[in-house]
């Protein structure tokens, strides 16, 4: 009796502790939203103590509206973000359609990580080196290119670069989603009704894929609206996108532009909200409202996914050797294909300082990604429990997504002011917190698929056999999900490594990372030195991805693991240890199915 009481007691203590941990997680990961939003709204309506303004007014909005070129800038911003999101979604789907479980799908999947790891800024620098009128492509063809892709008026270069950069992200996020969808059964059924592969994908899988990829599309859209660093390097300049304008106003020496800047930041958030709704609306149109296209016969759009994936990889991978050459070039004048004078001097000059900066970047990334990972796991666990127990409060998904969806610039502005009132000298603390905050939703998203496809019945069996909840988690769930956890950790690290605005604004510029150095140096246009930083910026997250992939291979690859857990959901065989043995046959069956369906 006593023992029973004791165990009940210890169980309730454990559950209370768990609840406290969830609460703490929510507080730490979402608290910055409050000052962020309050600071933004107050200052947009003219309450800015920084310049002795303590009354609410519309001055900010008036000066914003009076700014010549505002309408073009907004149209441009919308164009760039909608076009790049749409394009990357279409391209991603085309690739999935034509390559999913094809002969080389495995290779595509393995190669996704390095491309994903390439930070946006480094990619933008490399992209610019390729496509300026005197860039590498022009050097190969021996004359200047007359079309303009860098800083062009319509933002086409920015659209192309963002699209290329987002395709791997969407592909990566699609993998676990598709694994839940029973693609093979669908394809076989469709085939038996004599639909071909493309038709089956577009009519049957697209409507299922779209709602599941929604949050990732939101992330892509929000990023493209509020991106500052990439737009500075390759975006249009006349006028620039709204995010760049707001950034420039925020940093204007004349503090009287602050109301205009804050009003602009608010407009940016509203634009973002608007486009997110438009994605949701489009999705609804396609999947719910106008479904006639699904049953209008055997028509399907011809989209060549294979060439898209080749171009994506090619452009992303070719930037690396070009960066490498530039970093060793002393003199490389147009139109020479290789440098005329080589030199080690830039590496020698920077090396000593680079070690510090790399160490700094890595420590921040490791600490923040690890904490964010733990938080994400806690919230997932909580959601999984809430799923079975309806009485529990769920953490709303939209709340989780906000740091990813709200324009960074708008939020950070408020957060920065708040840190000043508390204690702004804890630069590292604030920067790491901001990194946790921004990396959290990405990690959460990366874990989402694996967590959903985990078979809850495994836990039930273990619990019924008398294992404690924590032991069940540690010995059964964790090993199965470990590969996904490793990858999510790498995703978090790469997100942290790429953070520019949070590091700069909350670190007061004192904390230098590879990214902040890269952007500061890009203002000086010295290609040789920019190349070094862009290169190192690409290599660091890459190393973590490699580690994550290697480690997850050791415990069974993500693919096998998910296939394994899929296997469990599909069949009644749910012994945990069978996953490693059954996966190989399972994936073989899968490939055969695809080849049959073709």
């Amino acid at each position, binding site marked *: 009796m006593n023992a029973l009481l004791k165990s009940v007691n210890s169980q309730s203590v454990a559950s209370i502790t768990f609840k406290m941990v969830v609460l703490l997680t929510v507080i730490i990961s979402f608290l910055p939203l409050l000052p962020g939003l309050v600071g933004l709204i107050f200052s947009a309506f003219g309450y800015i103590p*920084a310049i002795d303004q303590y009354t609410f007014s519309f001055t900010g909005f008036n000066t914003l509206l009076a700014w010549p070129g505002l309408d073009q800038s907004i149209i441009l911003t919308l164009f760039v973000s909608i076009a790049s999101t749409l394009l990357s979604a279409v391209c991603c789907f085309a690739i999935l359609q034509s390559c999913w479980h094809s002969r080389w799908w495995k290779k595509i999947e393995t190669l996704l990580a390095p491309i994903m790891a390439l930070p946006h800024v480094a990619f933008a620098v490399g992209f610019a080196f390729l496509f300026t009128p005197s860039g590498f492509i022009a050097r190969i063809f021996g004359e200047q290119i007359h079309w303009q892709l860098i800083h062009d008026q319509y933002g086409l270069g920015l659209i192309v670069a963002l699209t290329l950069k987002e395709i791997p992200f969407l592909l990566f996020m699609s993998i676990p989603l598709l694994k839940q969808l029973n693609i093979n059964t669908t394809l076989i059924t469709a085939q038996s009704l004599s639909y071909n592969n493309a038709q089956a994908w577009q009519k049957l899988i697209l409507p299922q894929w779209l709602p599941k990829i929604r949050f990732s599309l939101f992330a892509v859209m929000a990023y493209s609206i509020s991106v500052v660093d990439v737009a500075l390097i390759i975006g249009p*300049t006349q006028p620039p996108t709204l995010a760049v304008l707001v950034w420039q106003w925020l940093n204007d*020496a004349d503090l009287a532009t602050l109301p205009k800047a804050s009003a602009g930041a608010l407009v940016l958030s509203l634009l973002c909200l608007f486009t997110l709704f438009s994605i949701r609306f489009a999705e609804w149109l396609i999947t719910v409202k106008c479904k006639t296209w699904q049953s209008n016969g055997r028509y399907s759009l011809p989209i060549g996914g294979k060439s898209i994936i080749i171009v994506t990889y090619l452009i992303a991978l070719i930037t690396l050797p070009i960066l490498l050459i530039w970093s060793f070039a002393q*003199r490389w004048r147009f139109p020479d294909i290789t440098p005329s004078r080589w030199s080690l001097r830039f590496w020698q000059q920077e090396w000593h300082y680079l070690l510090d900066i790399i160490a700094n970047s890595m420590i921040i990334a490791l600490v923040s990604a690890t904490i964010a990972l733990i938080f994400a796991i806690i919230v997932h666990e909580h959601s999984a429990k809430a799923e079975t127990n309806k009485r529990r409060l769920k953490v709303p998904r939209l709340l989780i997504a906000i740091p990813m969806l709200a324009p960074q610039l708008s939020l950070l502005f408020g957060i920065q002011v708040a840190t*000043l*009132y508390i204690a702004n*000298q804890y630069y590292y603390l604030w920067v790491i917190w901001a990194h946790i905050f921004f990396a959290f939703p990405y990690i959460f998203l990366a874990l989402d698929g694996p967590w959903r496809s985990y078979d809850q019945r495994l836990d039930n069996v273990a619990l019924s056999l008398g294992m404690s909840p924590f032991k069940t988690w540690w010995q059964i769930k964790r090993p199965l999900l470990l590969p996904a956890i490793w990858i999510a950790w790498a995703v978090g690290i790469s997100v942290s490594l790429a953070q520019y605005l949070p590091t700069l604004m909350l670190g007061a*510029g004192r904390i230098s990372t590879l990214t902040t150095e890269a952007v500061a140096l890009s203002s000086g246009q*010295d290609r040789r030195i920019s190349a070094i930083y862009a290169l190192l910026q690409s290599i660091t997250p890459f190393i973590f991805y490699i580690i994550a992939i290697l480690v997850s291979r050791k415990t069974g690859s993500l693919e096998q693991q998910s296939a394994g857990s899929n296997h469990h959901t599909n069949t009644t065989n749910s012994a945990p240890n069978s996953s490693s043995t059954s996966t190989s046959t399972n994936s073989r069956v899968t490939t055969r199915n695809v080849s049959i369906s073709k």
Partner: protein
Amino acid sequence: MHKLFVGFSLLLISALGQATDLDWPTVEQKAKGQTVYFYAWGGSPEINNYLRWADKRLSSEYGVHLKHVKVGDIAEAITRLAAEKTAKKNTNGSVDMVWVNGENFKSMKRYDLITESFATQLPNWRYVDKTLPVDSDFSEPTLGLEAPWGLGQLVFIYDTENLDNPPTSFNELLAYAIEHPNKITYPKPPSFHGTSFLKAALLELASDNTKLYMPVDTQTFTAISAPLWDYIDKLNAVAWHQGKQFPSSASETIQLLDDGELDIAISFNPNEATTSQQSGKLSDTTVAYAMKAGALSNIHFLSIPWNAAAKEGALVAINFLLSPEAQSRKGDLAIWGDPTVLAPQHITGSAQKTKLFKSIPEPHPSWQAALEAEWQKRYGH
């Protein structure tokens, strides 16, 4: 009696606190071990390297660490200071020392973001060349709130292999641009060099340029700047990318000159061609020159925010940067090539070879904002 003594000593302490005379040995003593966060433009590897050298020297000689905080634009630091002012963070601020001039200095002064006057009390002030306009910054009196650091002149750079006879006035520049479409441009205002280009052109084209040295008002602005806009209309029509796109900075014009996209680049450093040749950025056949009328000239300064955490360290650092050793190295053509603010006899090495062009003083800073706004209205979108 005891109370009286306390009161007296408090009075004494506060009097000392307000004293304007710097007790230099005490400053050096307090500076030891301090880390000075120096906010300065971080786009140039040459400048960054120079500051690394300064850090080494300062550490070994004075125990002061100079940490270069690389910013894309110094205004970032000014906004930060303003935010700290709001939060009443009057001590232990994040910025210890800034590299400013012109508009940024004006902002700092207007919002009281600068520490008390210090420049003329630095021991190395005695080396400063007082014939230079070191006491005014874009016609704004410096009052010792900032110490001069170097000298800038608006110059143009061309490659003698492509061009034998560079245009030496803004009118000739337009004629050249018409003859060679797509080869001439200027950095986009409101970037520092872009606005300087407008100012320099206006100084040549305006019928009465004495008005440019007085605060601007709408009426004189419209009348005086009319020929400039007429000029820019014509120039933009034949400029690089037909004026639909402009380089973001002077550094980009230098890159574009080397790429063969432009025939003339722009810089605020009269030694830019030489230093860029040394680092491999430009070909050995490039030359810098100024317009016949002279080169728009200004001095760039160093200042200390009111809430600096390492005020003494910043004073020591600035004093060191004004030493003949530091200034000679800064002027070294293989290092940075920034012209000195010291009297020539104190300078050694290749910095001695710097030849300045005939100088034109900067217009009143109020013109800057007016020109930028008008340019934006006409061409910025």
